[in-house]
């Protein structure tokens, strides 16, 4: 046997340190008890009172989650144990308190119906207790584990086991015995208080284990030299939940395992209060990597997480990965580091990426889809060399060298409906560039290209297969090089609703503080806005996150260098509302659909206008 595909893992920022805890629970364990019942007419209420003839609930179970696997009239899911009295447990089963499976895989979401069953007094429920969601192990670091060579039965003279530990993961952290194998094991069955059966033997088959330290249950912590070991053991279909909080990656993680498949993926999911809860903005769990790199395997889905670090690259996803609702921030002062290095055949949507002195997103070798992303304050926003990607409905702004940079000879790339923003006062960098002198197959439609030295820069001599049309070019020094002007492209003021910058040319710097005497930084939002230092005597040119400010000073996350000459040139992007005005209204491709009576009224760029409510005239009334 081995760990199960149905195991759910749990990370908690307040968990016992050093990854010692078990951290997981197998919802498909075959040896759960089958005699769960409730007090009369409580099962379909917000506070069911459950009991079992085979198990007396105890005070130590409070806070753990009762898992109902199956049974007539029972509603499968996790229900937190709110209190215990007289050997019975009262559950939290109000709407939203429990988590129930919403798919045929391990993913869960908050309950929408009160109670743990569809009737008042069900019987014969199959159940277990998930101890993995507490911050401490239910058996916490006992040291008397023994095991006979080749056996899957482990023994503890302390008699700490209960039959409700079945399905929980036990972490054997230190074992005395030649060839003994530390690691995470499932308690697959219960023998008695001193003996449980694991999913596999922790011995080498030939030698006994004479002592061992072990932890049953409790969530995981990160920040350990076991971080890589843990992610390496995860199986296809496993789900790894991160509860809201801040985690530290203790070492570089680089997954060699290829167990996950296109149909049985591995999920990493952040959540706030209960699993499956809406998790956005700063509520998302934060994984701080430092210099460590986080390299995932193939066929993973990563959602609702924030990654920060300085690694190269910071996060690497494997083939067929999906990344959604994630934020990636690379704060390295070293040039060229990527926030995200995406694998091939990836889907990256609704994410935010920034790499102060590097690349926001590096595209993989082929066939990836990037949509609805915000990439900003980088040297290069999105970069790739290879084949058949699509970049659609993204906003990319304040990228010193280029918003989108294609280096390959045959990119077969579609760049559609994006808003690319350089700068208002002094055009900067390139909107879209192709650097290969033999490039072909590049299709650029419906992009709003604003404020660049060059809007589209192509290195190949003009080719039929490099096409731009239905784009808007405005405030660019040069709209395009080596590409024919699209018949339907326009040059109109997009009328952005709120794209604003603060610029200056007489600042001084000292350490991490930029001072503009007479300046007004009141519009700056700390830990959101960046300052791009363009030039100045003694200052280190680059992009910096603003961590605090006063009316005349900006404090940054990295040192600026010392410049007292009073000639530091800088720009701060304080407004990023790229909603457009009427000039771009309904001028995008496709317009009339061939062979139909349908006309599409798309606006150029990633952001469509909000129209007035019906009958509106004069000033706008925004619908909704």
């Amino acid at each position: 046997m081995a760990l199960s595909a149905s195991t759910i893992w749990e990370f908690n920022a307040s968990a016992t340190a050093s990854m010692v805890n078990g951290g997981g629970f197998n919802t498909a364990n075959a040896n759960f008890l089958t005699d769960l019942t409730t007090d009369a007419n409580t099962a379909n209420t917000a506070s069911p009172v459950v009991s079992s003839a085979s198990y007396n609930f105890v005070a130590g179970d409070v806070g753990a989650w009762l898992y109902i696997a199956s049974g007539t009239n029972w509603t499968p899911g996790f229900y937190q144990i709110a209190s215990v009295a007289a050997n019975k447990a009262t559950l939290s089963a109000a709407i939203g308190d429990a988590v129930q499976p919403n798919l045929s895989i391990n993913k869960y979401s908050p309950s929408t119906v009160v109670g743990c069953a569809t009737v008042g007094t069900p019987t014969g429920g199959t159940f277990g207790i998930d101890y993995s969601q507490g911050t401490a192990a239910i058996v916490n670091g006992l040291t008397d584990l023994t095991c006979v060579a080749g056996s899957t039965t482990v023994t503890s003279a302390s008699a700490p086991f209960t039959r409700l530990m079945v399905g929980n993961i036990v972490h054997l952290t230190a074992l005395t015995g030649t060839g003994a194998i530390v690691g995470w094991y499932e308690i697959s069955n219960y023998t008695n208080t001193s003996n449980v059966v694991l999913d596999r033997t922790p011995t080498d088959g030939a030698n006994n284990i004479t002592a061992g330290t072990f932890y049953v249950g409790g969530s995981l912590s990160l920040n350990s030299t076991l971080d890589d070991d843990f992610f390496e053991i995860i199986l296809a279909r496993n789900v790894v939940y991160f509860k809201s909080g801040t985690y530290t990656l203790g070492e570089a993680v680089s997954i060699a395992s290829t167990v996950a498949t296109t149909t049985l993926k591995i999920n990493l999911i952040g959540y706030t209060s209960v699993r499956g809860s809406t998790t956005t903005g700063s509520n998302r769990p934060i994984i701080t990597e430092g210099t460590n790199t986080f390299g995932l395997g193939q066929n993973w889905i990563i959602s609702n997480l924030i990654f920060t670090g300085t690694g190269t690259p910071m996060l690497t996803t494997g083939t067929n990965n999906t990344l959604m609702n994630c934020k990636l921030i690379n704060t390295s002062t070293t040039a060229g580091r990527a926030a995200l290095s995406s694998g091939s055949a990836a889907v990256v949507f609704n994410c935010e990426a920034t790499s102060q002195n590097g690349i926001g997103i590096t595209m993989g070798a082929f066939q990836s889809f990037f949509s609805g992303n915000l990439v900003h304050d980088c040297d290069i926003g999105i970069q790739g060399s290879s084949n058949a990607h699509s970049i659609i409905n993204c906003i990319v702004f304040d990228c010193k060298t280029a918003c989108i940079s294609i280096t390959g000879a045959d990119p077969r790339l579609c760049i559609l409906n994006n808003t690319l923003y350089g700068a208002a006062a002094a055009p900067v960098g390139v909107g879209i560039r192709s650097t290969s002198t033999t490039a072909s197959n590049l299709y650029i439609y419906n992009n709003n290209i604003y404020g660049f030295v060059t809007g589209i820069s192509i290195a190949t001599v003009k080719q039929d297969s490099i096409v731009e049309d239905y784009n808007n070019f405005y405030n660019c020094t040069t709209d395009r090089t080596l590409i024919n002007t699209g018949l339907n492209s326009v040059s109109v003021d997009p009328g952005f609703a709120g794209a604003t910058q603060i610029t200056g040319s007489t600042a001084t710097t000292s350490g991490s503080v930029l001072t503009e005497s007479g300046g007004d930084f009141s519009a700056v939002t700390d830990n959101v806005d960046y300052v791009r230092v363009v030039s100045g005597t003694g200052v280190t040119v680059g992009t910096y996150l603003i961590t605090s400010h006063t009316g005349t000073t900006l404090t940054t996350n990295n040192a600026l260098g010392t410049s007292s000459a009073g000639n530091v040139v800088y720009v701060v992007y304080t407004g990023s509302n790229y909603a457009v005005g009427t000039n771009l209204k309904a001028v995008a491709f496709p317009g009339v659909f061939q062979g139909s009576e349908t006309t599409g009224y798309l606006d150029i760029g990633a952001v469509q206008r909000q129209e007035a409510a019906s009958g509106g005239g004069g000033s706008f009334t925004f619908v909704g």
Partner: protein
Amino acid sequence: MLTFIGCSRKKFKVQNDLNDWLIDDQGKPTLPIDHKIFTKLKLAMPDPKDIPKKKQEEKIDLKQKEIDKKMAGG
């Protein structure tokens, strides 16, 4: 009494190959920061002696370099 399990106190520094390497107390590179992947994939461990003397323009992909060497029978 304190018991530390699985902790680490390591120093890192970007080298001329533009990768982060663990460094010893004298500041000399010893292992790439993601050294475990080389062991897992049964690749040769990159040698600090192979770090270029001059800072490179682009990062050297150490893993791919060792994969290419292995494929070439090196």
